């Protein structure tokens, strides 16, 4: 146990050096466009990636950093990823929603194009961490697929969220947020701060 560092930042993702961020990773294989980047997400540019004359609707979901969690003040979120695997997962999720033309959709595909981008590193309050953008012949299919894709990303994507909290009474600096355990405090066991661990 002596090897364990007491540095409270040890659990935080390596925040990128703003002057020298890791290169973005994109796959653009029309009709899909997916990527992971440390840069702010480009909303108009991403919408343009799914534009097509066959679409009557473009639906976009933008997930943004909220300034609070469980009545605590959030300073920022930071995302780390297993980038090569996460990129592959994004590609697989996107492709799975590109289905062949069918009678049900008037001889067209359910949706036309899809873009999914996830930002990595620090994402300040109010900025986007994820964009899901879908173009479809009709809005209903667009809404449906965009929601399904977002939920799939949250379940499957190899990207993890660090929540940096405003220091309250000393110890609470942040934690990894996952769907099973709530916030995992920085120091691992013994430093429980935020509840929700275990069952």
């Amino acid at each position, binding site marked *: *146990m002596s*090897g*364990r*560092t007491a540095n409270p930042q*040890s*659990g935080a*993702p*390596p925040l990128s050096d703003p002057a020298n961020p890791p290169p973005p990773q994109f796959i653009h294989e029309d009709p899909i466009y997916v990527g992971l980047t440390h840069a702010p997400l480009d909303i108009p540019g991403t919408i343009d990636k799914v534009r097509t004359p066959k679409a009557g609707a473009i639906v976009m979901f933008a997930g943004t950093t909220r300034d609070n969690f469980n009545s605590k003040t959030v300073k920022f979120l930071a995302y*780390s*990823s*297993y980038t*090569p*695997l996460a990129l*592959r997962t994004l590609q697989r999720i996107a492709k799975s929603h590109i289905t062949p033309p069918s009678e049900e959709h008037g001889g067209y595909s359910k949706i036309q194009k899809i873009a999914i981008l996830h930002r990595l590193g620090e994402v300040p309050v109010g900025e986007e961490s994820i964009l899901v953008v879908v173009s479809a012949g009709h809005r209903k299919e667009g809404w449906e697929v965009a929601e399904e894709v977002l939920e799939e990303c*949250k*379940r*499957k*994507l*190899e*990207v*993890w*969220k*660090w929540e940096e909290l405003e220091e309250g009474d000393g110890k609470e600096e942040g934690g*990894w*947020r*996952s*769907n*099973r*355990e709530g916030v*995992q405090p*920085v*120091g*691992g*066991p013994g430093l429980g701060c935020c509840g929700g661990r275990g069952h």
Partner: protein
Amino acid sequence: MADTTSAESESFKILYFAGVASFTGTNEESLPAPLPITELFATLEKKYAGIREKALNTAMVTVNLDYVDIEDKTLVIQKGDEVAIIPPGMG
């Protein structure tokens, strides 16, 4: 990522993320190969007491970017493989 060790030829690389990396205190290290996948969690528990209960039981494992079954008796991690412990997603 460019971190290399002298034992590289007889080792595999293991990556830790999020809460698992908090527990180990490192994002990446080398462990001796070959290692049957069924012994991976016990090996890590020996090195990081308590990690199984606190972090591994809810995690999945990939070898060279493919998810694997940690009870697969036929699977042996080879030198040069990239293994990753994948904690639960964001939900």
